[in-house]
């Protein structure tokens, strides 16, 4: 019979024996690898259950992503439609003044924004020749003044859904028309614009908040269930000598994996759903051209991060409770 505890004769244990308190030692901190093994095996074996949890997370995130991305798509489509509206009215006004656009030479001054660009496209389509070269020898039928010329508060085609003939003025040179897209906004226009922006922001915040809350509750519920139904397993692991930190680590790793997988699939699903629904309503081409895709990809990343944060937060509390439980209570609990 050996006179030393057997564990100490085995390799790799001596470091733990240094910290002994009286006769009692400290459990070594296990490498993350072992927790990782436990998690991946757990997910593989409980595949059906893991898929249910994953699906709950993915659906929650899909909902959030479709709401957020839907707003971006909607804003893009709305802006595009407004711009086209203004452009069509503008062309109609020009045609009323100058007759058919075919062969008419138009001079642009300043930098056209995206909405102004629509107008120029329409004009070209109607047969007009658009140029920003003032010294062009051919006579100019009309001059279009775009943004970037005057004070910062200006009415651009996009904002001013209210293009009026008042914006058209006669050039000192007879026969020439100036359409000023660069005139300073009036106080009423600025107030209306601020009011619309405020209402839009409040609506966005409300919808986003609700979507986030619904998603958070769904994910919390799924994670809570998947942890509490394993209290017995946690109790068993504690009997075998698992420290609380190990158990917490197992559940945090698992929640991270579920959060990432559910987040990515949910975000893509949500984007697809909102794009398809707007595509059916306004046409795929409209959605493709008018959506701010940079914003959409930012939202995709954001919702995946939200998924991980929500999943981990929701798993940490029950895992913490389980890790602190007396093993007898954990073993007794049945969910």
């Amino acid at each position, binding site marked *: 019979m050996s006179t030393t505890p057997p*564990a100490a004769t*085995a390799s*790799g*244990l001596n470091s733990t024996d240094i910290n002994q308190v009286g006769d*009692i030692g400290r459990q070594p901190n296990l490498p993350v*690898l072992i927790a990782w*093994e436990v998690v991946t095996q757990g997910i593989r074996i409980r595949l059906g259950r893991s898929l249910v949890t994953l699906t709950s997370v993915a659906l929650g995130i899909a909902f959030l992503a479709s709401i957020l991305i839907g707003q971006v798509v909607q804003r893009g489509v709305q802006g595009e439609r407004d711009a086209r509206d203004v452009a069509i009215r503008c062309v109609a006004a020009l045609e009323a003044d100058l007759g058919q656009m075919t062969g008419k030479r138009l001079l642009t001054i300043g930098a056209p924004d995206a909405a102004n660009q629509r107008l120029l496209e329409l004009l070209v389509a109607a047969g007009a020749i658009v140029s920003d070269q003032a010294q062009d020898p051919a006579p100019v039928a009309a001059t279009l003044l775009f943004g970037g010329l005057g004070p910062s508060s200006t009415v651009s085609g996009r904002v001013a859904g209210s293009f009026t003939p008042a914006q058209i003025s006669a050039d000192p040179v007879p026969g020439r028309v100036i359409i000023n897209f660069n005139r300073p906004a009036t106080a009423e226009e600025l107030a209306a614009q601020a009011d619309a922006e405020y209402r839009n922001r409040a609506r966005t915040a409300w919808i986003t908040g609700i979507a986030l809350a619904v998603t958070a509750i769904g994910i919390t519920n799924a994670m809570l269930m998947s942890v509490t139904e394993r209290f017995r397993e946690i109790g*068993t692991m504690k009997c*075998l000598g*698992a420290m609380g930190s190990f158990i917490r680590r197992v559940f945090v790793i698992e929640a991270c994996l579920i959060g990432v997988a559910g987040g990515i699939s949910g975000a893509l699903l949500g984007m697809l759903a909102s794009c398809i629904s707007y595509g059916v309503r306004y046409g795929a081409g409209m959605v493709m051209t008018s959506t701010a895709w940079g914003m959409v990809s930012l939202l995709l990343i954001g919702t995946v991060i939200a998924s991980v944060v929500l999943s981990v937060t929701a798993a940490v509390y029950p895992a913490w409770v389980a890790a602190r439980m007396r093993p007898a209570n954990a073993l007794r609990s049945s969910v």
Partner: protein
Amino acid sequence: MSTLALPESPHGLNHQLVDELLAVPDHGSKIVVRAVGLTKVYRTASHETHALRGASLTVKRGEYIAIMGPSGSGKSTLFNLVGALSRPTSGKVYIDQVDIAQLDHDELAWLRCRKIGYIFQTYNLLRVMTCLENVMLPMAFAGLDSDTARDKAAWLLERVGLGHRILHKPTELSGGQQQRCAIARALANSPDIVLADEPTGNLDSRTGEEMIALLAQLQHDLGVTVISATHDHKMLQRADRILWIQDGLIVKDGKPADLELPGAH
């Protein structure tokens, strides 16, 4: 490679190393468990249940002890207290001279890992792991490197008669086989004490008898202390000592032959 990977040859064991690992530590003291005046009260909103009313016991190293008594007598509560799985309302438990009330969470984990092996009525194997991995887990918690742990686990499983099933999942095994695996797991870190809570409770009579014999065999061969809460009277023939518990008190304590036990034939 996975840390819990399967061995390429489970039978290529280093028996000398395994024997050394399984040797029972001798700390000089003959008393391995001492419990003094244990009480446990479970409180619910409406009433209090006194599960234990002042139980005291002493267990010597290497004994095979059966805690017996009718259901609801406090057997499982005593099991939980002696096994450091819950705290007594009053009284003290010493395991190897250490008052376990003084230990923090992590020290308790150390104690449960190395000093005590647990066997449950419901086996409580982790079903996501193979038998081998189940037995290796407590050794992983103890920080043993996985090669040594795998050798020892394979040897233990052979020892309990599961040598041919080490790569099976618990769900693929019969109740008796699962309990054998649980016994191997309980012995993984060469504990001073093996605590068994109704180890035969879910088994048929013959398998239960096999389990009791296996425990007695291991207690004899490895010199491990076995404390088993049970109401299985087959335990009477094997146990060195019976503690008869009734209404939260230990009312009889002695060799099976010396005791007049209710219901014993």
